[in-house]
Each structure stands twice: as structure tokens, then as C-alpha cells.
């Protein structure tokens, strides 16, 4: 479980944001900054029948994106780490594409895959996958030779090398990489949800903005932030659990 320090930090952070927000609302008295309490009351009112579905869409997209990235990225990275030859072939490719700002690829992805779900998923996968590939590869390379040797001398096969050593050794690092990539993934998600769909928090927020419904818009922003925070925390807890041995 997460430490008290984490929760205390999160609570202070939340309080600070609310205080600044409230202060700004009082000082400026303009409709574009409604007071937090009004936003919260409105949120409670609209959440169930106006916003919930949008949240589910966003959540589904991001979870699907991250899962695909893990399902493809982890095996690729592990194989690269274990087999020198695969690494030699794939590394240049990964290093070449890794530093490209993925958002720059968005027009190409849209041209190739259209405006629908496919493009949105591909963008999230592209953001997260390189970090996962590189992290899992490096995690395998960092395993001391002696650990492999003791298993070899027991007559372990390739499969057992993966299940006993390679996967457990890299699991914690993979989760760290996912957690680090999550922030970017959520902002890209927001961006891709502003076109080609009528569902998702990105759509909801932009739509509220167009309708000049600032209460709804702020509610959407709050929920989107909360979603990011919850995902972050879930990964963090899992990470702590699987890396108890460190």
C-alpha cells in the first residue's frame, strides 16, 4: 500500500488547488472562473446521466492503449534484452523513432487510419510503447550473469529462464515506465478526443466550452484530472507490490 506521506501530499496538493481556485474566483468575479463549490454541485447533478458515459469511453481507450502497448512492448523488449541478435536488428529502429514527438505523427496516423477509434488507440500505444520496450530491454540486460548461471546449472530451459528470471526481474521496471508515460498518454487522449468522436472526456470538455457552459467544462476537467490521478495511483500501488524485493 502507499505510504501516509503519499496521501498527505495528495491531500495538500488538492487543498492548495482549491484554495487558489477559490481565491481567483473571488478576486476576478468573471464567468470563466466559477467558484469550486458551484462546479462541484453541478458535477454531482450531471455526472450520472451526462458525463459518466464519456468517462467510460476515455477510460476504456486509455486502458486498452496501455494494455496493447504492454502486450506488444514487453515481449519485444524482453526478447531484445535476452537475444543479442534481435537487439542488433531492432535497436536502431527503436532509437530512431523514440525521440520523434509522437504528436507530430498524428496527421499521418489520421490519414492512414481515419478519424475513428483506431487512430486514437494507435496514438496512445505510440506514446507509451517505446519507453516500455527500452525499459524492459534494459532490465533484462541489467540481470547479473550469475543469476542465469545458477539456473543453467540446474538444467533450466529457455521458457524457465523467462518465467523464473526475466519476467519477474523486469516487471517492476515496466510498471515504472508505464506510470511515467501515463501523463503524456492522458494529454494525447484529450487531444484525439476533440475530433472524430462524440464520446470521451475530451469531447465533453470541448463541447461544454462551445456551449459556453463553464460549469460543465470545469466539471469535465476535474473528472479528467481525477481519472489520471486514479490510474497513476493504481499503477503505483501495483508497482510497489511487485517490487517489494528491491
Amino acid at each position, binding site marked *: 500500500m502507499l505510504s501516509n506521506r503519499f496521501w498527505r501530499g495528495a491531500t495538500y496538493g488538492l487543498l492548495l488547488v482549491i484554495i487558489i481556485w477559490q481565491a481567483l474566483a473571488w478576486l476576478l468575479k468573471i464567468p470563466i472562473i466559477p467558484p469550486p463549490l458551484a462546479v462541484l454541485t453541478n458535477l454531482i447533478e450531471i455526472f450520472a446521466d451526462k458525463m459518466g458515459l464519456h468517462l467510460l469511453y476515455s477510460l476504456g481507450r486509455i486502458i486498452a492503449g496501455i494494455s496493447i502497448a504492454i502486450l506488444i512492448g514487453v515481449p519485444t523488449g524482453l526478447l531484445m534484452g535476452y537475444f543479442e541478435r534481435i537487439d542488433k536488428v531492432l535497436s536502431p529502429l527503436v532509437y530512431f523513432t523514440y525521440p520523434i514527438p509522437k504528436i507530430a505523427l498524428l496527421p499521418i496516423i489520421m490519414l492512414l487510419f481515419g478519424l475513428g477509434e483506431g487512430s486514437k488507440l494507435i496514438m496512445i500505444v505510440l506514446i507509451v510503447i517505446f519507453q516500455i520496450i527500452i525499459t524492459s530491454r534494459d532490465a533484462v540486460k541489467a540481470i547479473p550473469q*550469475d543469476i542465469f548461471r545458477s539456473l543453467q*546449472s540446474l538444467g*533450466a530451459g529457455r521458457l524457465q529462464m523467462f518465467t523464473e528470471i526475466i519476467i*519477474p526481474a523486469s516487471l517492476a521496471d515496466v510498471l515504472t515506465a508505464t506510470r511515467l508515460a501515463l501523463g503524456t498518454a492522458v494529454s494525447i487522449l484529450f487531444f484525439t478526443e476533440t475530433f472524430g468522436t462524440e464520446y470521451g472526456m475530451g469531447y465533453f470538455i470541448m463541447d461544454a466550452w462551445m456551449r459556453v457552459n463553464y460549469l460543465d467544462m470545469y466539471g469535465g476537467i476535474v473528472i479528467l484530472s481525477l481519472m489520471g490521478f486514479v490510474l497513476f495511483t493504481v499503477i503505483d500501488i501495483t508497482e510497489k507490490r511487485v517490487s517489494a*524485493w528491491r
Partner: protein
Amino acid sequence: MIEVKDLTVHYYREKEAIPALRQVNINIGTGDIYTFIGPSGCGKSTFLYVLSGILKDYEGSVRIDGRPVDPKSQRIGLILQNYGLLPWKNVYANTMLGLKIKNDQKFLDDHCHALLKQLGIDHLLDRFPKELSGGQQQRVAIARAFMLKPDLLLMDEPFSALDAITREELQEVFLNLWKENNVTTVFITHSVDEALYLGSKIVVFSPSPGRILDVLDNPCFQMENLRSSEKYYDMSMRIRKILNKG
């Protein structure tokens, strides 16, 4: 019985061949314990990797009980200087590892529990390696090796990372276990004292590339108050002389 005939090993870096062992010939009888001593870099670990089936690229022949080395069918207990424990498994899972890979049993039986007790680690079963002292980690590695009921025990400077007091403690614990189990053992060390205390025969290696300089019968083996006897002093001078001449 281990028969090593004309064993020569090279390491290859790019196209350069680095000799590590040259023309090693030795027979080790079943149930014997041989200590191998030699200067750093002379190829002692290399010799052990060949015997344990980790290194397969060599010239000459190595046979264990008349058959070529095969960690899948033979039971080889390997104990390394850095213990070779899996950091993500607790003591219980680490000691079980050999049995799990050999597919022997899913739980510790009475023999295993007695062994853990004898090694004084039966109260540490749910600890991770990082939560143990060096001496305790090495006890876990010893437990893992003996639980296998190995045909062959290979030890690569297992105690050299430990402080003097812990080292002598573990040498005694190990020797007692060895007497009860009577397993053919190759024990590598760089300490003349350890070679004399633990070896029924002592094999002296030349500097790199390693050759066998001499195989000595050890009259001090299993002697009471060994370290204060005259024989101990004589033998230790003899070994030092051979080592110095190279």
C-alpha cells in the same frame, strides 16, 4: 567420477582467441572433495563453468560418471561467490528453486526442513535476499544446493566475500553437511588455508592460461586442531612454493 581429459578453453572477443585453460587433465573420484587453488584470472571459474554445463564451447573431453555433462539429466549443485540467489524470490522460494526446476516436489519435505534448521535459516523463510546478511545468503545457497541431493557439487569461492569469522563458521557448517551427504565436490578457492581445511586433495593451477601444476594429497584433511599443527604449516609452505614458482 569426473574425468577431464585435455581440456582447453578459449574465450573469443571479436576474432581474437583468449586462452583461459590449457591441457587440463584430472580425475576426481566419486565422493571426494577437491579444492582448486590458483592465482586470480587463471581460469578457475572457467573450469567450473565447463563442469556445470554453462560453458559448452571447449576442446578435450569432460565426462561425469562416463557421460558428457548435461545439467538436464545430472543433478548439479552450483554455489557462486555472489550466492546466485534470485532477488525477487524469498528464502523459501529460493531454496525450492532447484526442486521446482527438476520437477521433484512442490513443498519442502522433512529432509528439507532438517537442512534449513541445520543451516539456521528456518526462521527466515519469508525474507528476501536483500534482507539477509552475506553469511545468511550463502547459507540459503548451500541449502538450495544440498536439497537437490546433487551428484556433483561445484563451489566457486563461495566464502571469499564473507568476513573471517563468518567464513570459518560456514566452512565448518559446510564440512559437516558434506560429511553427511558425501557428495563429489569441486571447491574453488584462492585461500591456502581454505584449501587445506576443506580439500582431501588440493589441485594447484598455474597463472593464466591455467594448467594444473600439481595435485597434492592433503594429510591435514579432517584433522583435529588443524591450524595449530606442524603438518598444516608444512603443507601451506609447499602450496605457496608451487604457486610462487608458477
